[in-house]
């Protein structure tokens, strides 16, 4: 089998469509993972034991089962109980939720690293719990965890091909469909690899910069 540049250019628009969707999913799902993960981390610290323990179990359950299975459940099983989601939405929720259980751990570590004295000072200056979180704890907890969060963002990006299983036309699915219809796999699959590699490499450079910028904070 020979490499066919003409074929590459011919399928390029389709692949770029897929790439656009892949990037969009990564962005949306990571937004979900960042927000939901913070929610999990805060709920796990709740003084109400049922809430704290319930969240803990839920997080362990999600993390302990494969993302692919969760995607199938959201997309193919939920309609049985009347919840019908478009593929993109199902994929974003599935990936976002799954990775939220990982980002929750990052948040937990970051939050625990804020000295207890900061909580006490917030209380002594009569801030409410919400004000303490927003103005005292999170501004100190978040910067050191940015590199770890960005790491999960890259991991999510590389996991997006899983969404082809629930008919999302992301990069991998587009490549598969052109390959299936033309019986040529080498160009589409190579190009998918090249795209992922190129973006990952750029991301790693950005990650290094983030680590340098936020990794160490002055005490």
């Amino acid at each position, binding site marked *: 089998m020979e490499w066919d540049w003409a074929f590459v250019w011919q399928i390029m628009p389709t692949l770029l469509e897929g790439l656009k969707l892949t990037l969009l999913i990564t962005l949306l799902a990571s937004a979900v993972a960042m927000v939901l993960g913070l929610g999990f981390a805060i709920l796990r610290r709740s003084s109400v034991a049922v809430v704290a323990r319930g969240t803990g179990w839920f997080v362990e359950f999600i993390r302990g089962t494969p993302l692919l299975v969760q995607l199938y459940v959201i997309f193919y099983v939920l309609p049985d109980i009347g919840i019908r989601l478009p593929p993109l939405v199902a994929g974003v929720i599935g990936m976002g939720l799954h990775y939220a259980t990982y980002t929750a751990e990052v948040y937990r570590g970051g939050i625990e690293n804020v*000295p207890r*004295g*900061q909580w*006490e*000072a917030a*209380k*002594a*200056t*009569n*801030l*409410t*719990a919400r*004000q303490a979180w927003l*103005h*005292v704890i999170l*501004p*100190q907890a978040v910067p050191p965890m940015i590199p770890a969060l960005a790491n999960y963002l890259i991991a999510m990006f590389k996991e997006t091909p899983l969404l082809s299983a629930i008919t999302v036309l992301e990069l991998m699915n587009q490549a598969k469909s052109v390959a299936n219809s033309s019986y040529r796999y080498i160009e589409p699959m190579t190009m998918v690899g090249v795209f992922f590699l190129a973006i990952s490499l750029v991301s790693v450079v950005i990650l290094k910069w983030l680590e340098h910028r936020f990794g160490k904070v*002055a*005490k």
Partner: protein
Amino acid sequence: MTAPIIRIDSIRKSFGTHTVLDNLSFDVMPGEKLALIGPSGSGKTTILRILMTLETINGGHIEVCGEQLYHMQRKGREVPADEAHLHHMRRHIGMVFQHFNLFPHKSVLENITLAPVLTKGEARPMAEKRARDLLDMVGLADKAGHMPAQLSGGQKQRVAIARALALQPRIMLFDEVTSALDPELVEEVLLVMKRLAAETDMTMLLVTHEMGFAHEFADRVLFFDKGHIIEQGPPDHIFSNPTHERTQTFLRKIIAAGHRV
């Protein structure tokens, strides 16, 4: 006859099986400057932390400014205070910590204005003006724009005092505020507190190992041991001729350890 601003009535506090305070009672009058002294682990700091609601009590009652601190009335019955009630009570009380606990991500000025703006809805320009006045009072007018990490320990503690004062509490709690400082920085903090004691009618509770300062600062000294008040009275009495043997032993040890009395 004025009523006490703080009434501590038979409170109990234990951490696990270890009882720190057992059936402790005392009153503090408005404007009084009280020094709490005694060996480590005698429960002095716990009392301040309980008053600041950083710890809860296991029994008894505390009244602050005429209201119950840890209890409230609901449908004619006394029930444990909820967060809203504690929030309402905390505005009477300010606290300065041994380890400063400044907000490291905020400038000196923001450390002082954060709470007044958030909790009292003060306009920022007004809060900033008062913050600058307070910084002037603690001798740090030129440090408003600095970050806490750029300050010495003594400067940090003076900012922490200004931060607590910015909320205009009626009661100030000082928890071993010079213990974490290098010896040469202790004096500047004590000087600020002396001025504060002389110039305001705030009620102040001080936990300290600086006996000389306690002597000069306090109207009344309480000597604690194992969660009980062993002896109390005017500083001249406690420091010059303590009646109780445990007070005498404690003061002798403190002097031997190089602290001034």
